[in-house]
């Protein structure tokens, strides 16, 4: 066997506690991203390394206020794919979790006095098709919109460019049963936990079936009973395991029993 492509990219995880200003999240992201080959363009702009087939994406981090962080995700054509925010409470001492690699960038913040919130984005793994088989490979997500409204933040929602316009929509895979569409099967009869890829789809304007676009790198979904920050060891190849951390900032979906986790070890 071999490590699947979407789990074989670079990754880095950092935790910072005792935060009272989103600038701390931005500073740590900057350090980690650059260490992963990203380049800083000034003004909070960071561009991922260009891969072997010319793919890249960028994020712009903005300190809206001491408590508000905005992430703009842009695709390879500099189209703004998503513009999402997290709002931290006035009660300080938040905890930040940074997940970044050549194909993904996620900032998750645990507030303690309120629910965790996250912003993020990345490139999709198109395999077994060629990684440059199509150009719809950048996605973004976040807990709040740019008006600070918490909405469309479950792990079924992400933004992509469907035709020419970026749209935040319910575009992530649903591992439901064929009857009701709910009750995602994430347990074996031996009660072991099942991990599945987070796949995204392009949703054509005007209807018709959604088109499979690819898998998010270093991201898995499993049963929605995981606590914020819980770490799980997952076999990813014969004799090889990896650690994934569940986050609730890209919120769980109870009807589907789905929740996301990102690579942390």
């Amino acid at each position, binding site marked *: 066997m071999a490590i699947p492509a979407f789990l074989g990219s670079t990754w880095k995880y950092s935790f910072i506690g005792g935060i009272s200003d989103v600038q701390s999240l931005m500073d740590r992201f900057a350090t980690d991203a650059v260490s992963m080959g990203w380049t800083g363009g000034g003004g909070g702009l960071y561009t991922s390394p260009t891969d072997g087939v010319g793919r890249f994406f960028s994020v712009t981090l903005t300190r809206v206020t001491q408590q508000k962080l905005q992430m703009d995700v842009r695709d390879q054509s500099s189209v703004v794919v998503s513009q999402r925010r997290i709002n931290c409470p006035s009660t300080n001492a938040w905890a930040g979790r940074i997940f970044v690699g050549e194909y993904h960038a996620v900032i998750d913040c645990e507030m303690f006095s309120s629910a965790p919130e996250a912003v993020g984005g990345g490139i999709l793994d198109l395999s077994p098709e060629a990684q440059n088989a199509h150009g719809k490979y950048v996605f973004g997500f976040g807990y709040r919109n740019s008006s600070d409204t918490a909405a469309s933040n479950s792990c079924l929602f992400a933004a992509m460019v469907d035709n020419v316009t970026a749209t935040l929509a319910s*575009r992530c895979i649903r591992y439901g049963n*064929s009857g009701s*569409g709910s009750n*995602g*099967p994430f347990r074996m009869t*031996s009660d072991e936990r099942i991990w599945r890829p987070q796949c995204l789809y392009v949703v054509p304007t005007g209807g018709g*079936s959604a088109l*499979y676009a690819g898998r998010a790198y270093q991201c898995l979904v499993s049963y929605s009973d995981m606590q914020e920050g819980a770490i799980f060891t997952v076999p990813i190849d014969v004799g090889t395991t990896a650690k994934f951390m569940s986050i609730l900032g890209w919120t769980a979906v109870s009807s589907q029993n789905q929740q996301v986790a990102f690579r942390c070890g």
Partner: protein
Amino acid sequence: MAIPNFLNSNYRYLSVSGITDVQSIIDNLVGELVTNGDWSVVSGGVGVSPTTLKSSVRPVDGAFIQVVITRNSATRIQYQAYDHGGLLINNQTSCQQDIDAGGTEVRFFTGTYHFCVDSIRATPECYDCGILDRSPSAVGVPRANYYSSQGPRSNTGTLSNQAVSSVFLLPPGTTSYLSGGNDGVVPRDPLVTSAQTSVTGAYITFPYELCSTIYSMGRAYQAILVPSSLSFGTEITVTIDTGVTAVFKVVGRTTTKDCRLAMRKP
């Protein structure tokens, strides 16, 4: 990479045209599963009805499936599948299947852990059953899992429950096999139809994984889900490992959430 376990078992394919008596189905199953396979005859055999066939025992957990096949009439056959514990898998007395009096092509997809009989009538009638693959989970913990299609016909001969999702499974914690529309896993796109194609137009295929509520029961051997845009009998070539492809043929189970069932053939 490596070939997934559920695609790494023995498999055979046979198509026989002009069958006018279902005894030929029994006889060909003996030929495919026993003479040319690793099943055994428990009772009956060529020319005999009923005939009971038993799969080889899966070494890791002692699982096997046993099927009693009966000629009800020249044009109607019935199947009763039992798990290693003796429980009736298709727990509705039997599943029945018809052919045409004037002759029907029948396609046999058989292997160490499965068989599928597809009667190519104007409306195809397909019966399949088998042991499920639960790798990398320990296959015998807590017990082996089995499935049987609910159709193509009920024990009274009514054409019904032919959908891909209509299967008998043994829900965890129970002692009787149950059927229902909630027993198929279909990875679905946001529009709650199946994922038919990628952005490039390439077909998307998935293992035929079966579930009972939140529990995955496992994957059927040598079977995949394909887009329902593929008509019955269509053959599709799928990459199953680096540099390795396999051919699957769409069988007569009806559509569930825009998915059809396809079985492996050489």
